[in-house]
């Protein structure tokens, strides 16, 4: 019994590492950020940085200008704000950092520093709060969680968060099926299987935490189509799945999923029958 467990203990991590390494190896370069609704006219990129975690998202809008607060709202990141008199809403928490807080802008510790940048990509510290700062197409907003009284460097350069030109032939609002070259794989967003704690949360991975814009669907598993590849194959989409279309949180039950579940149940039932039959033999 002990010998068997030892064998398992040796084989399984090797298998796991192997699979993880294989998938990580095939993973190609910095994955592209999402920008759903590529067909929409205007985009603002938002960059969040705390500790070593960097996340970004591209938010699109149709009006001429957009409030920074709306950008944060539409980005899909978790956030919390508090009204602070003259400067309007102050950001207390983004992406669940800090997990708990008493004061939004504390007297000591860290707080969220708000930056803006124009199309050139150079960050400047914002003068006002998120609810009174407006941005237009091609601008960027950035948030960095930094200690009070520190140097307050800006976040990473926002280049590439939003594509400069809208990709041409995509009529589909949802690039559902992934046409990406990213591996059929098990690339967990934080590079779990491969050793390397520094991988946790690096924005090299395609920002799944950002998801699509809040208005569009969560089509799970949809990697980016637009930025890197151009169009996702439109032919694929009708066959493709899932009416994840308008639901924000959990995916819905599509007919295909129901059939799959039935097939699974049938196979499990068959397993039980086989097992009984063989035992009786």
């Amino acid at each position, binding site marked *: 019994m002990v010998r*068997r*467990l030892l064998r*398992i203990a040796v*084989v*399984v991590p090797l*298998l*796991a590492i192997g*699979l993880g390494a294989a998938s990580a190896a095939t993973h190609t370069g910095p994955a592209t950020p999402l920008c759903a609704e590529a067909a929409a006219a205007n985009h603002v990129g938002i960059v969040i940085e705390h500790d070593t975690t960097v996340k970004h998202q591209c938010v699109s809008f149709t009006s001429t200008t957009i409030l920074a607060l709306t950008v944060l709202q539409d980005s*899909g990141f978790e956030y919390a704000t508090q009204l602070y008199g003259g400067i309007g809403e102050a950001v207390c928490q983004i992406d*669940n950092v800090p*997990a708990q807080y008493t004061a939004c802008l504390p007297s000591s510790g860290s707080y969220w520093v708000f930056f803006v940048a124009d199309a050139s990509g150079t960050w400047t510290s914002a003068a006002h709060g998120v609810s009174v700062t407006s941005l237009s197409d091609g601008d960027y907003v950035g948030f960095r969680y930094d200690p009070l009284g520190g140097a307050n460097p800006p976040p990473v350069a926002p280049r590439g968060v939003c594509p400069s030109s809208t990709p041409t032939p995509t009529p589909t609002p949802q690039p*559902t*099926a*992934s*046409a990406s070259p990213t591996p*059929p*794989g*098990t*690339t*967990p*967003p*934080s*590079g*779990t299987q491969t050793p390397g*704690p520094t991988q*946790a*949360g690096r924005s090299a991975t395609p920002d*799944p935490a950002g*998801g699509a814009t809040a208005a569009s669907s*969560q*089509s*799970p*598993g*949809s*990697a980016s189509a637009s930025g890197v590849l151009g169009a*996702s*194959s439109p032919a*694929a989409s009708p*066959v*493709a*799945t*899932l009416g*994840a279309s308008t*639901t924000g949180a*959990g*995916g*819905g*039950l*599509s007919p*295909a*999923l129901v*059939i*799959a579940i039935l097939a*699974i149940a049938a*196979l499990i039932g*068959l*397993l039980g029958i*086989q*097992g009984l039959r*063989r035992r009786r033999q």
Partner: protein
Amino acid sequence: MNPRALGAWALAGVTIALATGNPVYRVLVLLCALNILIALRRPGISVRGLIVALIVAAAIAIATTTLASHTGVHAFLVLPAGIPVIGGRLTLEAAFFGLSTGIGIAAAVLAAAPLSLVLEPHALVDALPAALARTGAAIGTALNLIPGIARSATEIRDAQRMRGWRSRRVREWPDLAVPVVLTALEGSITLAEAMEARGYGSGTRTHYTADVWHRADIVVAASAVAAAAFFVALRISGVISDWYPFPDVTAPPVSIAGVVSCLALAAPLLVWRR
């Protein structure tokens, strides 16, 4: 059951299991493979050990993913951030992702398992292609010799025990090890003599195969290859996609074509009988 047909099936199963990150298809492959193992395994073979090992593997996959990845909306536990690697939020999404990985490993392993649990060992040796003929002869003789060596080891141990040998003292281990090794060596020399007497040596050799393809074998091999090819095509064209349950866990996307491909792997259950 033609060994090469089973080999094609196993290859198709492993391909499909590894070609997608979507747990729905993986579970289908896993269940097909498990059914085939239970129905067609050799008498006297138990798959219980294998299943236990795979459950442990899946548990480890879930644990490592949950502990190392801190992404996801639904956290069920928060460890102090100061701890390296595992400090931070432990999320449900990461656990599900780990589960999907574990299911993938299990599906691939179970798809390959019939090669050793369904086929007789000598059938695999016989099915080797001509290029591996010498290796086949070597493996064949090993398969023949090993049970004999094991038996002689037991006999020697029993006989030495009757002469007062006790296995507890390390000093006395040569009394078991040396005879066993010497006997094994002598046995292989005897076998070498027999092989030489039958003409084994340098020179051109041909290859004997009792390869017979029944209709059932053709059905299995063709359906498996078609299923794998179709599945890979669907994957490349984007119809079948991976499943990232981040930041919020949702139902995986399922395509009917993919489900059908996976179910085609159940063909051996319909046409093969033990």
